[in-house]
């Protein structure tokens, strides 16, 4: 008695077998705008919406200046050189902070990802510390690091360490066990194992962490640059808030938003370069 019975359909005779469907070649399927243009649609729509809301007065200028005002404010900030200076200053801080925080975060993630003992010591501590609000630590940082660049960089380092830690650690724990076994039989030394197996395997996750950290580095500036800053995007925004310069606030927001796009671009590029090996799903 055949048991693998097809129960949903009655057996069909060859005569009334179904019509054939055509497999559509890709060239005929794909059409429309090139990719980068299509990715611009969302942001452009958003700006358009903002413009409309501003012009119709739904968004009063005291709350959120319209795109036109913001453009002219940005132009004048650019003309005085303030905007460039702010971006450069913040960029420097973000870069140093990210370098330090990233190194710490990734190192700790490797330690707790690889070693049970490391996990026992490091992981719960990190999980505990990561929910501590940064701003509450600023007074401590002032005491330890003074009021120069150090506390700002330390704050960014702290803020960026956690996303990288979380994602790299998760990435390491997500590495295919069968590959780790295979690598073990190949006689890799521990450092070689980390370099050639664990870290590449954790890379897709690590890049998510990087994406996060790159964003957080800039967000942390809003707080870091409350401490004795005379330049920087965070400083500019804090200052604008003090002086009720809604247009400058929005210029800063736009700078932040553009930065988000740049971060996205960078990480996408890295993904394209570093994850070319990945047989992953890429959307329908």
């Amino acid at each position, binding site marked *: 008695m*055949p*048991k*693998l019975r*097809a*129960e*949903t*359909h009655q*057996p*069909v*005779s*060859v005569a009334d*077998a*179904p*019509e*054939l*469907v*055509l*497999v*559509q*070649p*890709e*060239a005929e*399927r794909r059409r429309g705008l090139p990719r980068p243009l299509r990715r611009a649609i969302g942001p452009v729509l958003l700006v358009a919406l903002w413009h409309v809301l501003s012009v119709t007065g739904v968004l009063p200028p005291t709350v959120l200046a319209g795109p036109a005002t913001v453009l002219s404010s940005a132009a004048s900030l650019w003309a005085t050189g303030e905007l460039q200076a702010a971006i450069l200053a913040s960029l420097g801080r973000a870069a140093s902070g990210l370098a330090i925080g990233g190194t710490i975060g990734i190192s700790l993630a490797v330690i707790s990802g690889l070693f049970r003992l490391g996990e026992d010591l490091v992981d719960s501590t990190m999980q505990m510390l990561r929910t501590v609000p940064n701003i509450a630590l600023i007074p401590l940082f002032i005491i330890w690091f003074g009021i120069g660049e150090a506390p700002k960089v330390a704050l960014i380092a702290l803020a960026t360490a956690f996303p990288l830690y979380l994602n790299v650690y998760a990435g390491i724990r997500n590495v295919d066990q069968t590959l780790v076994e295979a690598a073990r039989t190949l006689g890799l030394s521990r450092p070689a194992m980390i370099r050639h197996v664990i870290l590449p395997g954790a890379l897709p996750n690590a890049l998510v962490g990087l994406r996060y950290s790159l964003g957080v580095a800039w967000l942390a500036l809003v707080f870091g640059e409350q401490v004795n800053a005379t330049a920087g995007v965070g400083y500019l925004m804090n200052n604008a808030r003090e002086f009720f310069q809604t247009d400058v606030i929005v210029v800063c927001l736009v700078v932040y938003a553009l930065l988000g796009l740049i971060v996205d671009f960078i990480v996408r590029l890295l993904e394209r370069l570093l994850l070319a090996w990945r047989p992953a799903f890429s959307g329908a």
Partner: protein
Amino acid sequence: MSGRDNHDLAVRVRGLTRRFGERAVIDTLDLDIRKGEFVALIGASGCGKSTLLRILADLDHGITGEVRVPRRRAVAFQAPRLMPWKSVWRNVTLGLPGGDHRGRAEAALAEVGLSHRSDVWPKVLSGGEAQRTSLARALVRDPDLLLLDEPFGALDALTRIKAQHLVAELWQRRRCAVLLVTHDVEEALLLADRVLVMREGVIARSIPVTLDRPRRLDNPVFAALRGELLDLLGVSEDVAGRRAA
């Protein structure tokens, strides 16, 4: 190969080309499979058999040419491709219409000798067990075209015979078209109406197997066909007889 009525066909391929970079793995290939026909496909490793199967399964669109296949297809891939987050029996009935999934899964798993494994995660399956699960998943469906990519490669002799039997039985009952990729020439001759030899991106030879079923390995026609096919694969009788150094 082309004089037949379209209405009679389960697969119709004309001028199919698939390039990866510069290399045309499939190069203006033509192929017809009649409704209810059992076709075996053999060829050297890397010659494009799985690529062709993926195209017939409507999974690869980087092609040029005309490819027509039935709407209802079932595939057993070369690797088992089980969802690691679904237990074995849920893998078998994933996407199946209708009810009583558990019962149908159990029946199918019993047929491939895996009743005792139906509740475990795929990660604990042995190679052959995973392959049988994948086979059960394809056979439990109700396809007009069954695409099997080396479905018995990881099975021991006895399990393999049972699995072959199972496929043959399903085919005879359902009269679906079957395309079986295999490296085992005897297996191809035991099961198929026609054996295709793929080489350099095309179907280099199509050899009808007119032997009555059930077939016997010791039939002289069988032996002759076997010799011919091995020859086409580059294995001379002498090498086949005296293989290891």
